[in-house]
């Protein structure tokens, strides 16, 4: 076995209008976890797509795998060479069984008219899952599994067929701490088997936890490859961003009167007996494992989902949230979990997205939308939130994740809400943009807005919130103040539902997730 498994030299990739990769170098050794990092749009995913055979590099690029030219021209080449990928969006088939998902693409390599060996497929799937300690029925249709289990299936698929290099593109972005821990175990296991891992993430902490070496990209250019020991968090950020980021300092301020009082809210199969309050000028974070029912609760508060029982009291008035229209009227704003699917109309401009929530108030007496005012509104937010590029008519689909998220926030600020609910506000957003969004949330709270932040990112939860609610299996397991909160305490509540003051053991964590 050669010392380097994967070697990339002077790799470039041009998209119309964008040089996504410009003379990039990368070298990955067997048995190492190699972090690939950079801001949004730095070119990480593009590089991965090339490794995966989905995209072709420009001429002149060198791409060696196991010391030989890789010649990967289509995805199956990569798979056959032993490169497998866990995509950020999982990339599974909801309509197929778990076994098929794990073995997907294996039939394809043999060509269209070969027989599918069901028994073999089930056996491989079962063995892989068992080997990982996952308890999942291989015959069940994938869409019937919870998102957490789907994630496990995606992991199983990546290692099912003797991979030599496993690429993980933001594998933890839709995971919460419990599954993250589980993933770390899997990674350690793979490492010990000499399998190389290329790891992409925006979360500093975890990068330092799992990675051995770091390759930094900036604007498609290669910045450098560094050993873990050469770096610290601050230095890494500097390399990524190209300048020093001011760290966020929290300005404490006192909270105002109570705005929202939720009591005994229940919805069968989603959440049960939820009670909490929200005050003006405070940020309450709601955390827990994926599938603990936070998003459903937010949907209920925003009128997207009915509830079975319980009450919502807003400003002293009991309200029934039967529709989003009503929620908006009551001054509630919701920045959803998936900004691409639920947050933005990607094919439309910044202007049209920001005005969407308040179209009615932009009309004149004839019922026609005043486009001038609409544009002014967009410009105002582009400036105040520093949205880039500052082109009001650019399609939001062409913007970076962080800026997209700002547009979503802008469209809700336009409604002048009393309560802002943000669901996973910095998912997949780079560190720079993340800090900006945190700052923005703090500023809004200071100005008197009540904010509910739903997040699985514990460092985020700790950074922005005044109070923390921990959800577990559809109920609120406990509440922690900003001062008393720590990662361990949150994890205990999330996993076991108790205020234990010592860290849970890894195998307990594992069970908490899989069961």
């Amino acid at each position, binding site marked *: 076995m050669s010392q380097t498994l994967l070697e990339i030299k002077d790799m470039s990739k*041009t*998209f*119309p*209008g*964008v*040089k996504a990769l410009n003379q990039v170098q990368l070298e990955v050794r067997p048995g190492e976890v190699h972090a690939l990092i950079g801001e949004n749009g730095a070119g990480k995913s593009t590089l991965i797509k090339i490794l995966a055979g989905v995209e072709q590099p420009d001429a002149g690029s060198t791409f060696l795998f196991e010391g030989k030219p890789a010649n990967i021209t289509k995805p199956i080449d990569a798979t056959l060479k032993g490169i497998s990928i866990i995509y950020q969006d999982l990339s599974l088939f909801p309509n197929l069984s778990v076994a098929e998902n794990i073995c997907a693409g294996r039939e394809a390599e043999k060509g269209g008219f070969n027989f599918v060996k069901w028994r073999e497929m089930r056996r491989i799937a079962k063995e892989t899952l068992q080997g990982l300690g996952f308890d999942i029925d291989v015959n069940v249709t994938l869409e019937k599994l919870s998102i957490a289990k789907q994630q496990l299936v995606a992991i199983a698929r990546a290692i099912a067929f003797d991979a030599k290099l496993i690429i993980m593109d933001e594998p933890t972005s839709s995971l919460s701490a419990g599954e993250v821990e589980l993933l770390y175990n899997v990674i350690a296991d793979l490492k010990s088997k000499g399998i190389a891992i290329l790891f992409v993430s925006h979360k500093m902490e975890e990068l330092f936890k799992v990675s051995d070496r770091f390759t930094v990209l900036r604007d498609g250019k290669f910045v450098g490859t560094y050993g873990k020991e050469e770096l610290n968090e601050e230095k890494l950020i500097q390399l990524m961003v190209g300048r020093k980021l001011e760290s966020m300092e929290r300005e404490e301020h006192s909270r105002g009167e109570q705005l929202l009082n939720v009591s005994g809210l229940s919805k069968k199969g989603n959440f049960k007996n939820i009670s909490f309050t929200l005050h003006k000028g405070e940020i309450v974070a709601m955390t827990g494992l994926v599938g603990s029912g936070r998003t459903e609760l937010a949907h209920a508060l*925003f009128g*997207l989902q009915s509830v079975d029982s319980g009450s919502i009291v807003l400003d002293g008035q009991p309200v029934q949230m039967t*529709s*989003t*229209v009503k*929620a*908006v009227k009551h001054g509630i704003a*919701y920045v*959803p979990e998936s900004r691409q*699917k*639920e*947050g*933005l*109309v*990607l*094919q*439309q401009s910044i202007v*049209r997205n920001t005005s*969407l*929530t308040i*179209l*009615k108030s932009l*009309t004149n007496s004839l*019922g*026609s*939308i005043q486009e001038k005012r609409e544009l002014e509104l967009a410009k105002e937010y582009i400036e105040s939130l520093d949205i880039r590029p500052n082109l009001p008519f650019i399609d939001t689909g062409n913007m970076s994740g962080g800026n997209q998220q700002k547009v979503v926030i802008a*469209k809700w600020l336009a*409604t002048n809400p009393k309560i802002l609910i943000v669901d996973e506000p910095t998912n997949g957003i780079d560190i720079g943009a993340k800090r900006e969004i945190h700052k923005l949330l703090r500023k809004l709270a200071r100005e008197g807005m009540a904010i509910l932040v739903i997040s699985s990112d514990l460092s985020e939860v700790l950074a922005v919130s005044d109070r923390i609610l921990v959800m577990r299996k559809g109920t609120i397991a406990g509440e922690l103040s900003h001062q008393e909160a720590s990662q361990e305490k949150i994890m205990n509540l999330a996993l076991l539902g108790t205020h234990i003051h010592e860290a849970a053991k890894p195998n307990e964590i594992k069970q908490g997730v899989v069961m």
Partner: protein
Amino acid sequence: MKLSKEWMLGLIFLGLFIIMAVCVPGFIDPYNLTSMLYQLPELGILSLGMMVVILTAGIDLSITYLAALSGVVMAYALTAGLPVPVAMIAGIIAALIGGLLNGFFVAFIGVSPILVTLGTMTLFKGIILLITKGNSVSGFPDSYSFIGNGDILGIPFPIIVFAVIALLAWYLLNKTVWGRSVYMAGNNPIATLFSGVNTKKVIMYVYLFSALMAAIAAIIMTSRYNSAKVDLGSSYQLQSIAVAVLGGTSISGGYGKVIGVIFGTAIFQVLSSGLNLLGVPGMVINILIGVVLIAVLLINFFTAKYKHNQLKKAT
């Protein structure tokens, strides 16, 4: 220079028109020109209705039977001696009820539009057959015939109606909250709903709008043809889809312009009239319309690809 696909279509129309004018005797004869202006509004108006439905990634297969139903109701009202405006209102109401049915199944039950309108198409056809027993209903007052056959200062009245309707559609789609919501929901219904827009209502109005277009087309048709019958205008079913798509409307929703539909209708009309005048058999006209449809889409595809490559080279 940047040329949007609508104006590209405009050029194609112009080109066709010139070719016809040169090659087809009698084509630029004023009589033929006015005659075309009498002919195209029905299809144009139906296509506008179809376009708006397609904007929401839907399709309305029932549109022509809705028009026929509306026409039959009007015809009965007229032959029963009701005043013209009352009859028209009756027809419009009948169409709107049909539209309501479509909208209900699509927006509230969530059944995909192609299925709903497949069902309602059969249903409307059945209702018309039941009430007319398959016979045509005719014998309207002379005053009614003006709508389809009259002119104002030599300008055919139907084309005036079409112009007004097109303007109205343009205004509704581009200036009002509803129109904006149609485009936004067409691109991404979830994000639109998540922005506090009542998307069900928006979709409901879309089907009511297409029903209204069907009713207006029915008014013109019943007046022009002086009768109403179960298969009145049935050949417009697929034609109106073809015109909308030819006009640049994206079948997956969210994109489409009134001007495109107008050019699309005009191309259809010029093709069919010109070829008819040349004595080309009807089936060959159908072949050519299919060819033009695919050709225009291929042109769009290849120009987009060309631009893409140019941009790549430039980078």
